[in-house]
């Protein structure tokens, strides 16, 4: 299985490179350094938001987290409001944002395990609750400012024009890989994703792992929001929404099975990259929007044809 999933991650990565080159040919300047950095930066947001989604999808049991978008927005709003542009307040605000994100995830997890609410509805309901809370508390007035620390991290240059968010993504990516492949939690996560009865009878605390996974997903989505704020500098009500479905898409394009139990974060990273490169490429090509959409869909299907195929029925 490992071989298969690495190879799907790899082929997604290769496809991203192919798209880059294609872009460079279609559009001299597309593959220039600045744009590559920019695309990587954009992929990093999607990639970070999709970490939690990866974990939740691997956990199986129809697992999916549709609340990530709302939590992204909430995370950004918390930083925006509580730091009001002051670096000194960043750390406490960050802890608050991550804590609130984790709390939301925790509630999702409890709903899914203890109350047996199907994850899709639980997390979608939670989206409404979070959006509703944001509306109720702010009444649509976004007061505050982004602290320079986070804007520098995302928009500034660490070395050679590389913003700090890229190494951060790679570190988080490695961390996630370690979490999945080199910790007990990771092994248990895959197990419950495949067969919860087997996991239970092998001494895995199934509910605990599920709750933990949704909690992590909430926390990481909030982190994604914090980082996204560094890019947009301002918050708005719909900030995170555009990441919900693409986060699922990035996970699946990366070779993780929606049924659970199979996959990894390397694939998701590559998936995020593929989706971002494709969008960017199409943005730069001068086409009517309708045609862009058609091309986007067709190319995505072609990508799937290259590697995203399921097993044959007949061995």
């Amino acid at each position, binding site marked *: 299985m490992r071989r298969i999933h690495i190879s799907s991650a790899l082929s997604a990565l290769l496809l991203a490179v192919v798209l880059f080159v294609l872009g460079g040919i279609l559009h001299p300047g597309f593959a220039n350094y600045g744009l590559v950095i920019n695309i990587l930066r954009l992929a990093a947001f999607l990639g970070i938001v999709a970490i939690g989604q990866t974990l939740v999808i691997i956990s199986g049991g129809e697992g999916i987290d549709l609340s990530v978008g709302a939590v992204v927005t909430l995370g950004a709003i918390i930083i925006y409001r509580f730091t009001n542009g002051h670096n000194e307040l960043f750390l406490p605000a960050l802890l608050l944002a991550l804590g609130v994100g984790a709390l939301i995830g925790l509630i999702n997890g409890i709903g899914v395990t203890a109350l047996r609410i199907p994850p899709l509805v639980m997390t979608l309901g939670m989206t409404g609750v979070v959006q509703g809370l944001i509306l109720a508390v702010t009444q649509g007035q976004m007061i505050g400012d982004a602290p320079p620390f986070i804007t520098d991290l995302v928009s500034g240059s660490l070395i050679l024009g590389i913003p700090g968010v890229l190494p951060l993504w790679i570190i988080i990516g490695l961390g996630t890989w370690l979490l999945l492949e080199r910790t*007990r939690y990771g092994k248990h996560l895959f197990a419950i994703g495949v067969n919860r009865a087997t996991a239970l009878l092998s*001494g895995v605390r199934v509910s605990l792992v599920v709750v933990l996974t949704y909690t992590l997903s909430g926390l990481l989505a909030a982190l994604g929001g914090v980082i996204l704020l560094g890019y947009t500098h301002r918050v708005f009500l719909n900030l995170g929404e555009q990441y919900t479905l693409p986060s699922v898409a990035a996970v699946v394009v990366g070779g993780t099975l929606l049924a659970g139990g199979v996959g990894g974060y390397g694939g998701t990273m590559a998936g995020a990259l593929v989706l971002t490169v494709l969008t960017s490429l199409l943005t730069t090509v001068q086409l009517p929007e309708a045609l862009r959409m058609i091309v986007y869909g067709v190319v995505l299907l072609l990508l799937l044809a290259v590697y995203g195929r399921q097993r044959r029925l007949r061995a």
Partner: protein
Amino acid sequence: MGLIVVCMDVVRLVYYSMGKLSLSAQGLVKRYGGVTALANGSLTVRSGEVLALMGANGSGKSTLSKIITGAVAPDKGQLVLNGQAVRFTSPLAARRHGIVEVFQELSLIPDMTVAENIWLAHEPLLALSMIRRREVQSRTRDLLNLFAGTVSDLLQPETLVAALSSDERQIVEILKALSHQPELLILDEATASLDKRQVERLFELIGQWKAQGMALIFVSHRMQEIFRVCERATVLRNGLTVDSRELATTSESELVSLMVEQGAVERYTKQTQETLSSGVRVEVQDLRTKVLRGVSLQVHEGEIVGLGGLRGQGQSDVLQALFGAIPKTGTITLEGKPVRFTHPSQAMRAGLAYVPGDRGQEGLLPVRSILENLQLPSWAHYGLPLNMRGASQEASEITQRLGIVMASLQDPVRSLSGGNAQKVVLGKWLLREPRILLLDDPTKGVDVKAKSEIYQLLAELRAQGASIVIYSSEDEELLGLSDRVFVLHDGLIRAELSGETLTRTELVAASLGSAGKDSRV
């Protein structure tokens, strides 16, 4: 009396074409990536005979059978049916020629009823492809009648397959194949999950089918079964057909030496009485679950306790209740201290291990690697980050010990043969070196050689002071391994056999319950 009814049902249900069938497989080859599942598989079978297909775990029996039934596409070789070369591109195609298989890993759909499963894809139809519900019901009932008396009466046409125990599922799978009125029926380890009486009934039926001109291929790791129902045996070794023998003129040890390179197959190792005086490790009092009605027993250190009786009389419940996997009442004391496990992880931490009886549903993670399956209960012992080298090393030791045939530890368990998968289920708990080992039919589908290896492992564990509680559907195994046997019937212990009384006759007598008045027997 009941039997006559059953016979008439059979006659009514199963009509065979009078034409003779002869099928031969020639030089079949199947590779999965680098693994050769079948290097050169050949066999011939004719109407009215039962051919045994034998071989160690992973030798290619299932692969060969599946090629014959169109479920697996061969890389090379051909099938010749009644003198004509044929190609089956799907199970449906093979079925059109009267060839049907009882799959080792079953082909049932848990969320559908017994009747729906049996008649899937060949439902009796009205116009507009509407299903004749009545007919489905009554014909299912007729089929179920074939095993009447050997299964609980809760096995009805309308029962969901998800609610069945593994022996009942196996029976449904057999009846499903039978409902196609096959000319060639392949039974791939169809007896591994059945208890003695169910096997008896199956053999009676096989006798009738054979007489009516059906051809059968029978796969099993139980020698006595092979010698009882088969005329000829074709033996596979490492994917090669090595020989085909008339059983009348072949001895058991000859067959074994054909299957495995060195025919050293040792049987059970029995403990001397002295351990019984050692301390009591587990004490169970008045254990009640949905099936158990008050069970009390003790297990000593260094003792193997068998749970006997027919299938489904509560043996699995005893094991699962001890392991904290099902709700229960009653008291369980572990080395003098009362324990209340509400989750298997607690039991595990206290040194218990449980090998479930249903590997497909409860024992395996099919898409995950062999390594991950073996180490699932043990990851806590490999630090943070996990010491993968250590884990691989220990896992590969146990795979060698159990003789698991595989290409690499990283391969998914799904790619293992049935017997090898069973060894994984067992191996993951042996790795934990448990103090109390709970085994639910642990050698199901395991070949003779590996079985003896497992017996030896159990003996070693016992010598180190482990306590073992085992249920086995094979009486020989149970009697051969256990120091004492508790015979369960209808949720109660009906007899405790040890020493003198630890005999087959006593076991059988006790299995049937005290007076046989219970209709569930």
